[in-house]
């Protein structure tokens, strides 16, 4: 019996390492495919190069990096105020009936496939932007709006959790000192839940940078440095998504190299979000 239990414990330990081994394998194979090309082109030329013409062997991904940051920035601009407001609404102001609608709505926002968002953006949002604001419509603005809604569930659920996790005397103390409900929320509770809220924003950024299919359908995919929110753009993810289907040789390796940069950005964002929520826990 003892011996059997020991063996089972070993097996479970092995299983428990599966997620970290998968992470390791992902890093190994993506870096293995991508790094040789970054080495060949030169890290500087690869990251800071502005020309992406695979047929001529020029691989510079700066426009995609900039594109990714523009869309993510736009998404945060819309998603953070909206998400924080919904989180406050759900944790502090919930009239039961609306909460009964809002909660499943947010779950659905998380569950709807990204291709549906992309399609809706393409059919509804892109023509609106083209007709009323000009430009091609397939633009950073359209992409940001869609992404802003896509990252809402991440921002809302984690912010709401951290607001709810506050000890009740934060709020009652503020109210007892004569603060209005809103002052208690805005001056005491939100600052106290700061690290959780920031973590939710960082995770939201990670989701925004990582989104692929919806962005392929909405951004227009032009490889050039964006200069306005109405410009079409290409992100790191869409660069991979569009060209992976037909790329070979150096071109394919360059797409993996794009993946290397994306992976690094995501890992930095993730680790800082994890570090922040650890601090909250302790």
């Amino acid at each position, binding site marked *: *019996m003892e011996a*059997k239990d020991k063996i*089972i*414990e070993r097996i*479970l*330990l092995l*299983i*428990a*390492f*599966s*997620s*970290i081994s998968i*992470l390791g*394998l*992902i890093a190994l*194979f*993506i870096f*293995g495919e991508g790094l040789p090309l970054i080495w060949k082109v030169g890290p500087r030329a690869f990251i800071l190069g502005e020309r992406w013409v695979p047929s001529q062997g020029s691989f510079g991904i700066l426009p995609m990096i900039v594109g990714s940051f523009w869309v993510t920035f736009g998404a945060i601009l819309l998603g953070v105020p*909206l998400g924080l*407001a919904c989180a*406050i*609404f759900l944790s502090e*102001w919930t009239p039961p009936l609306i909460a009964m*609608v*809002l909660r*499943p709505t*947010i*779950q*659905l926002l998380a569950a*709807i*496939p*990204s*291709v*549906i*968002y*992309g*399609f*809706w953006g*393409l059919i509804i949002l892109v023509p609106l932007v083209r007709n009323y604001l000009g430009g091609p419509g397939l633009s950073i603005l359209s992409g940001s709006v869609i992404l802003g*809604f896509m990252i*809402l569930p991440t921002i809302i659920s984690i912010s709401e959790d951290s607001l709810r996790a506050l000890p009740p005397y934060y709020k009652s103390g503020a109210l007892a000192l004569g603060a*209005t*409900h*809103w*002052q208690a*929320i805005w001056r005491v509770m939100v600052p106290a839940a700061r690290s959780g809220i920031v973590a939710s924003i960082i995770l939201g950024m990670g989701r925004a940078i*990582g*989104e*692929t*299919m919806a962005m392929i*359908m909405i951004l227009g995919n032009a490889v050039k440095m964006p200069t306005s929110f109405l410009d079409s753009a290409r992100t790191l993810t869409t660069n*991979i*998504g569009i060209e*992976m289907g037909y790329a070979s040789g150096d071109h394919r390796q360059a797409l*993996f190299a794009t993946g290397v940069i*994306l*992976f690094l950005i*995501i*890992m930095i964002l*993730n680790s800082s979000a994890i570090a922040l929520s650890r601090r909250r826990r302790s």
Partner: protein
Amino acid sequence: MISNRTRYLTQNVAKVLIWTAALLTIGVMMLILFQVLAEGLPVLHPRFFLDSPKNMGREGGILSTIVGTFALTLVAIVFAAPLGVGTAIFLREYTRETRISRIIRFGTDCLAGVPSIIFGLFGFVFFVIFLNMGWSILSGGLTLAAMILPTIISTAEEAIKTIPYTYREVSFSLGGTRWQTVTRTILPSAIPGIFTGIILSVGRSIGETAAVILTAGSSLVMPTSLFSPIRTMSVHFYILAREGISMEMAYGTGAALILLVLIVNTAANWLLNRYIRHRV
């Protein structure tokens, strides 16, 4: 010193803004659902589900993509569920907060944040090429399994966490070993919670496109084995819409996709509610 009037004015303005945000979120969600369902539901005759796509998807139905979606999801769950539940059991029942458990948690959290296109690249170079499985149900399913693993781990952990400590004490006091305690006491009570996590992962697998298109291909032929390439509903929808093959068929597929996700989500919610009520 802020006067009382200003304080309450600020509060009311804030209230209005927050209400607006909540209603806007609900409104946009409704708009998306309404747009796709209004155009898509009329396409959903029974024949649409029973015919396979013909002429690149311009005619016929979506049967082969439904089969593809289910096959892929099934493979993903079969691989990810034991690994995920095993990890959760280890983290909750076999170790306290140690360095090992911290490393495992960090790995799981990081994996949860990896974008799907990265999983796609990985699945392509590892399963499709390195392990020579080609574009197939197996490659796609294994890639999805890696992707949904963090969800299954965290929901299973939550489910195990809610089980009162007395359950374990009773089991140990009756002479049960750790493993007996897990299999006879912990798992039976945690099953509904674990199942909720699995259903949520099914939802994610159904909607995934980027990782699937790179690992399972986009063939419209009805699959015959685990090594057949397939096209899932999401990939089909994407190709129909992006290449402008047929808007009518795209709307139909989109509506079917939304209905499926709605059903899966409602099931997960129902289970979770029942489970919580049962426990408290």
